[in-house]
């Protein structure tokens, strides 16, 4: 670096640049959270049951194998759109599917990836289903590209 470019100039770029972008990030966060998100995450449909379902999701570490909106582990299928894939967009069909699926685990097919038996109650399975249904309706800019997730 040329001698004209001094250490104090470098420090000022660091301090000025980082301060500016921290402030900009805070402004954008405020806009995202207060103005944009309420219209995109259908929070008016965020019922008690959905909240309980999120706890079932978390307490069993589902994200340790699955991804949800593309985040998590990549060992098992994406579940943000499983309501559309397996429930064909119908709450009752989806709940019936979930009940059958959760109770059939693990398959114990030799050599295949196994999903543990979590011993969820019917209530917990219904809560989890509601959570996944609500999640499937978040406006996420049209992701994933197709039904397979």
């Amino acid at each position, binding site marked *: *670096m040329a001698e004209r470019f*001094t*250490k104090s100039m*470098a*420090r000022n*770029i*660091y301090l000025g*640049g*980082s301060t500016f*972008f921290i402030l*900009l*990030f805070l402004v*954008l966060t405020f806009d*995202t*959270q207060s103005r*944009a*998100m309420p219209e*995109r*995450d259908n929070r008016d449909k*965020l019922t008690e049951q959905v*909240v309980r379902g*999120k*706890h079932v*999701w*978390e*307490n*069993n*570490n*589902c*994200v*340790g*194998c699955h*991804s*949800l*909106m*593309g*985040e*998590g*582990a*990549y*060992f*098992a299928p*994406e579940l943000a759109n499983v309501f559309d894939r397996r429930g064909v967009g119908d709450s009752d069909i989806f709940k019936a599917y979930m009940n059958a699926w959760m109770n059939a685990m*693990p398959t114990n*097919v030799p*050599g*295949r*990836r*196994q999903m*543990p038996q*979590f011993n969820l109650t019917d209530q917990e399975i219904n809560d989890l289903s509601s959570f996944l249904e609500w999640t499937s309706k*978040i406006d*996420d*800019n049209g*992701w*994933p*590209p*197709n*039904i*397979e997730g």
Partner: protein
Amino acid sequence: MKYQSQRVAMPYFIFALILFAGQIVFGLILGMQYVVGDFLFPEIPFNVARMVHTNLLIVWLLFGFMGATYYLVPEEAQTELYSPLLAWILFWVFAVAGTLTILGYLFVDYATLADITMNKLLPTMGREFLEQPTITKIGMALVFAGFLFNIIMTALKGRKTVVNIVLITGLIGLTVLWLFSFYNPSNLTTDKYFWWFVVHLWVEGVWELIMGAILAYVLIKITGVDREVIEKWLYVIIAMALITGIIGTGHHFFWIGPPEYWLWLGSVFSALEPLPFFMMVLFAFTMINRRKRNHPNKVAALWAMGTAVMAFLGAGVWGFLHTLAPINYYTHGTQLTAAHGHMAFYGAYVMIVLTIISYAMPIMRGRPYGNSNTAQVVEMWGFWLMTISMVFITLFLTGAGILQIWLQRIPESGEALSFMATQDNIAIFYWARMIAGCFFMAGLVVYFGSFFIKGQASFDEEVHSGPALQDA
């Protein structure tokens, strides 16, 4: 070593390396489960092994950062550590809490673990990388706070160097951002948004300050280049890191609910995120080319150049590959993400910790000029075996990812293969990755072996034409 209290870094480094070994063992288990699905099922389900693998990584890197800090801050400040006793107490608190948490993952069913640690009172568990019980998270916050107090008190009573200021700024950021791990709103989109305040703003934000400071310190020591020059580089690098990385958080906001303007902001700013890493490559190589002394610890210089190059490839190039929104639409959450994650963490954070260990451990063991030539050669073998293996792990996961995207993501609904059918089709890449993983493990064993070779580098007057080693 100028100050006795620097020695408290030693247990931190040793424990970090032990956890590193554990991380790799669980990495191999995960690799096997990718190809033999029911491997170790139901004793160690995939989610448990993955939690252990990623949490061990985070915890051992934190141990490494803390060891680096305890080692270099007193020397930079030219004073003894404020309280070596506090550093020892926090070491045991963190080591015991960390070990108990990992044992909890392995021997207690996760839902039961959530129950007995009273997750209900303040639910924070069950989110990727933040799986720790709330009580562990609180313990970590207290350890960070006590550590910061000790370090800040040390720095304040001595010389204020740029390396210390940047390092401590990074550590304050690390501690403050950790507090977001306690925020778990019931709205998933809000939860995810602020989850990234820990995850992204750590690894693509404040951790880069920590990495830059450690790299600058080691370069000052081994090259003897004027501090003014190195500090100027450091400021430019961290300026680029924060200017690009903060708004660059937007590349995680594409598909989790936030509005469309993040598609533009995230793409543009994160496309610039390779810049600070590219500057680190120029920095390391320029300083070593302009060195005023030939430090006999050659392998430390190798690690310093290696971390810059691999961080640039892993975080910079592999990050850029899939960061633009139109591309990320297809690649998000595939094996390409895993490829990037592996090389970025190894290059930037594993290797910077191994750099400072390579420089500082011999000194703490009474070998001021570094380990013997034999030990250094063995350590270099460890370096190349681990690094080349990681390159192959990354390439194989990249192959898996590209094929996965081709089969599962690009075709229309109805024509695309299902997730599981796709996995069967890309199994060959997982087998290849597994083999590369075994070579990585071999490299780690060789690396560990280098610590047990006796003797030290000899002091050669001829190579010390520059300032004396102890003066930097």
